[in-house]
């Protein structure tokens, strides 16, 4: 009897509810891995773009040129760094306000900073996208698996009541099949937990760099306005 216990048979012979639980967990695991890989690629690229942009920015290039470069890239539908979009939002607003010939330099700075704040919060959204899903998979899938296990064990004990001689061989397959649900839950949860922790730390880090950059840029603009 023990020789025939393959995992596939255990899964097939599980009761309907346990099967549903297993299916949910497999789906959750697949989707969470999609998120994990996608987030990994995205964050990696964001960091690379940010580094190259920062290098470019501090190389002494003319800001107008930098802005035009970025516009070309945006038109080609290529990805631009988060810091660059903050820069573009701030610079556009700054140019508009100074062209109008606004007399109050403080008002110009204030408007520019507001525009940059908006761009920053948009960037933060992008960085943290999909992370809540990972967090919920990480926290709920062990419970879902546990539910499947408890249900399966319950069923196998109920079946035990109708058996004349209760041996371990009667209950063991039922319990083994129920435990598969927990195993699946953990299988889905562990990578999700690890990925969530890692990616949220990375996202925080990147967002912090964007903020620093925004501050630096606004100080440059401030100098420009007040030195006129």
């Amino acid at each position, binding site marked *: 009897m023990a*020789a025939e216990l*393959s*995992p*596939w048979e255990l899964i097939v012979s599980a009761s309907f509810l346990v099967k549903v639980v297993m299916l949910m967990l*497999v789906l959750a*695991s*697949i*989707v969470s*891995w*999609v*998120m*994990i*890989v*996608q987030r990994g*690629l*995205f964050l990696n*690229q964001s960091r690379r773009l940010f580094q190259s942009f920062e290098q470019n920015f501090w190389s002494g290039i003319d800001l107008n040129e930098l802005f035009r470069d970025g516009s070309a890239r945006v038109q080609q*539908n290529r*990805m631009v760094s988060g810091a660059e979009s903050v820069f573009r939002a701030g610079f556009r607003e700054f140019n508009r306000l100074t062209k109008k010939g606004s007399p109050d330099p403080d008002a110009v700075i204030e408007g520019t900073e507001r525009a940059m704040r908006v761009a920053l919060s948009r960037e933060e959204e992008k960085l943290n996208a999909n992370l809540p899903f990972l967090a919920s998979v990480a926290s709920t899938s062990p419970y879902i698996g546990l539910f499947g296990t408890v249900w399966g064990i319950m069923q196998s004990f109920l079946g035990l*009541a109708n058996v*004349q001689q209760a041996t371990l061989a009667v209950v063991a397959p039922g319990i083994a099949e129920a435990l598969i649900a927990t195993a699946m839950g953990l*299988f889905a949860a562990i990578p999700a937990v690890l990925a969530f922790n890692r990616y949220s730390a990375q996202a925080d880090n990147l967002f912090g760099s964007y903020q620093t950059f925004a501050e630096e840029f606004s100080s440059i603009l401030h100098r420009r306005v007040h030195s006129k």
Partner: protein
Amino acid sequence: MGKWFSYSTATLCSIALHLGVAVLVANKWGHEETERKIVAPKYIDAKLLQLKEKEKPKPKKDNSAAKRREQERQKKLAAEKKRKAEAEKKRKQQEAEKRRKAEAEKKRKQAEAEKKRREEAARKQREQERQKALEDELFGELDEDIEGQIAENDEQVASSYLAIIQRRVSGNWSRPPSARLGMEAELIIQLVPTGRITSVRIVKSSGNAAFDQSVEQAVQKADSFPELKNLESRVFEKHFRNLRMVFRPEDLRM
């Protein structure tokens, strides 16, 4: 690198990973059944050893005459030994010869016995087959009869166990003073093969709550009928899994 691209790579990666894990689990599990080695415990026979004192080397005498005598004695001893060894060898050879002969004889006898036995077995089998064929013919006709007999037999066994249960329950039953003749309560008792009562349910009330309660209590008090353990499962399933009992105040009847 567009959004679409990153998502599709991620999806592919994820699906490939899951398929890989599934295949790995399915394969590994099947092959993991290695033969279990049974390691027999090693026994060491304990023997009582007699402790002997080692012979002490004799002090040498550097006396040449004594030496010569000693040598001669040793030579004689060696010759003696040789003779003895030869005699021993001869004796052993003879013995071996004898043993061989005896063994050959034994083998022959065994072979004969084996042959006889085989013949006997074949004969027996033939006979059995014939017998079986005969029986089959007979039983083909009698099958229905036998089944009927078995059922009847079961019925008898069941009724004897029922009698035991009745006796036990009626012993526990204290009839309430409000019980009147003509009252009748019917209940279903659920039993498990160990003889325990799992549930008692009144299906037809007598119309008198006290009476119903007393009946139910009587059954509950009995708790279990361990005698049912000896019952065949076929009989149990048929008669005792759901046992229907009718109670009347004048007697306890089924």
